[in-house]
């Protein structure tokens, strides 16, 4: 029968665009939401600018490592965060992208995709990550013609089909679990060894239609009108062969969604935004938190904590440095 995932609260659509905000947050994942909570409690004028409420939480079917919840849907956790934020009446501008960010004297100017411009004394980049691609021939041509980056969204299309899962981390293991109810054959292909949590690997043992090819690289996605398989290279046997399959789920982590700050704040060679202990970037008054930063462990609870740190540091900056410079 049917489930109903009702999101009980809705974001505020009232967004005052006049004046100078204390703290504008770009992104509404765990880092952005928690920063909003902490900033509002400090009395800052704070607003959230976001493309999609919940950010990457919506790419996760279930979360079982967020303290206080032994098992919760990613979307439900996002709804709970939004519930909490809504009790403080923090304005959220949804369905937009911030396309420009520049610092003008002390303050920041943000260009929004719907044409408006906003100004803020401090800004938090909490834009998370985007699915990492394999960057191999055929991947783009067969995107959504067999190649997928969202197991929970697309699993029904793989009913009674053979699906390859690329990756060896927690997301890949969870992808296998999501697919198990639909696909009649699942093959994990990963270029090194498993990195997923032991608790997830245990669960994979109960999936009879799963086979695993470790130390194996996917070299190309093959097909005609739709995807028909992949070409792989076994690194140990030094052998190339093909695996026929109707689907390829790519779960190999994320790339930081940091384009907005290129040329403004410093990033590392992976494109992650470099932050100090208080989440401040190389630009005074510009903060970053969550998966978009150099922090190596991309976890919900760590992003949440970074959001809080950033808000507290922004408050301190506004009370001291910002005032002194004025």
């Amino acid at each position: 029968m049917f489930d109903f995932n009702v999101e009980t609260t809705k974001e505020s659509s009232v967004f005052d665009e006049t004046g100078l905000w204390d703290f504008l947050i770009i992104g509404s994942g765990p880092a952005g939401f928690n920063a909003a909570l902490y900033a509002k409690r400090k009395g800052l004028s704070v607003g959230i600018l976001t493309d999609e409420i919940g950010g990457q939480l919506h790419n996760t079917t279930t979360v079982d490592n967020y303290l206080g919840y032994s098992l919760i849907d990613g979307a439900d956790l996002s709804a709970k965060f939004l519930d909490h934020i809504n009790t403080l009446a923090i304005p959220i501008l949804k369905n937009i992208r911030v396309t420009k960010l520049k610092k003008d004297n002390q303050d920041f100017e943000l260009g929004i995709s719907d044409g408006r411009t906003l100004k803020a004394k401090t800004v938090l980049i909490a834009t998370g990550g985007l699915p990492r691609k394999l960057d191999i021939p055929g991947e783009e041509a067969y995107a959504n013609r067999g190649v997928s980056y969202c197991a929970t969204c697309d699993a029904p299309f793989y009913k009674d089909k053979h699906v390859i899962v690329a990756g060896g981390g927690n997301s890949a293991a969870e992808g296998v679990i999501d697919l198990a109810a639909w696909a009649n054959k699942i093959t994990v292909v990963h270029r090194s060894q498993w990195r997923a949590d032991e608790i997830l690997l245990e669960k994979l043992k109960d999936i009879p239609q799963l086979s695993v090819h470790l130390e194996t690289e996917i070299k190309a996605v093959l097909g005609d009108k739709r995807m028909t398989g992949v070409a792989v290279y076994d690194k140990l046997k030094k052998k190339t062969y093909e695996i026929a399959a109707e689907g390829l789920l790519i779960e190999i982590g994320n790339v930081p969604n940091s384009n907005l700050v290129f040329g403004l704040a410093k990033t590392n060679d992976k494109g992650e935004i470099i932050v100090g202990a208080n989440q401040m970037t190389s630009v005074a008054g510009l903060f970053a938190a969550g998966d978009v930063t150099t922090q190596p462990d991309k976890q919900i609870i760590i992003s949440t904590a970074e959001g809080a740190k950033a808000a507290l540091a922004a408050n301190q900056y506004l009370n001291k440095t910002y005032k002194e410079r004025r």
Partner: protein
Amino acid sequence: MANLLNEENKKQIRDFLKPMKNPITMVLFTKEGSCQTCKETKQLLSEVETLSDKVNVEYKDLNQDSALAEEYGVTMAPSFVVLDAQGMYKGVKFNGIPAGHEINSFLSALIDMSGHDFGFDKKVLERLKKIDKPVNIKVFITLSCPHCPGAVQNAHRLAMLNENIEGEMIEAQTFAELSNQYDVSGVPKIVINDKHELMGNQPLESYLDTLEKL
């Protein structure tokens, strides 16, 4: 059939629909014989009708009420349209049951159609006003897709604000043949005038950029 909505769902939906301004009417088309999710969709709509005095449902048969179906451009079952307080069709259509995550685009459509302001920027509204060609936006979804309700909501809001635009949700599993025809194997997949494709939940501007090029 047992209730589809449990007590918690009912309370959530009742609270959610409280801010509805004006009454709305849903016109559901089902058909006799083999019809995947017709029974369930009928039941869902009837259960939601009991949760707000501003929600009304009319039940029609795709074959017997073919003239009305044609008026709303309904060709499949189950399929329903949401009419405003004056009984006007504003291009808001659902093909298949809006269960799972899609319950959210369904509830949003009811609230929006009841006369709520969406908070769109005036520049967006100005661009939207200028779309003067007929536009059909199909949004293919699955019930397990958390990104899909946002895409459906966008299509429906565009439809409500411009009479040339129609937005329809299509549940890809119920209408598997149609999904195959449109080569859908990832969602949300947005197809505009059967020609232009957008993948994933896009900001409004991406829809507008495409509509302006038609």
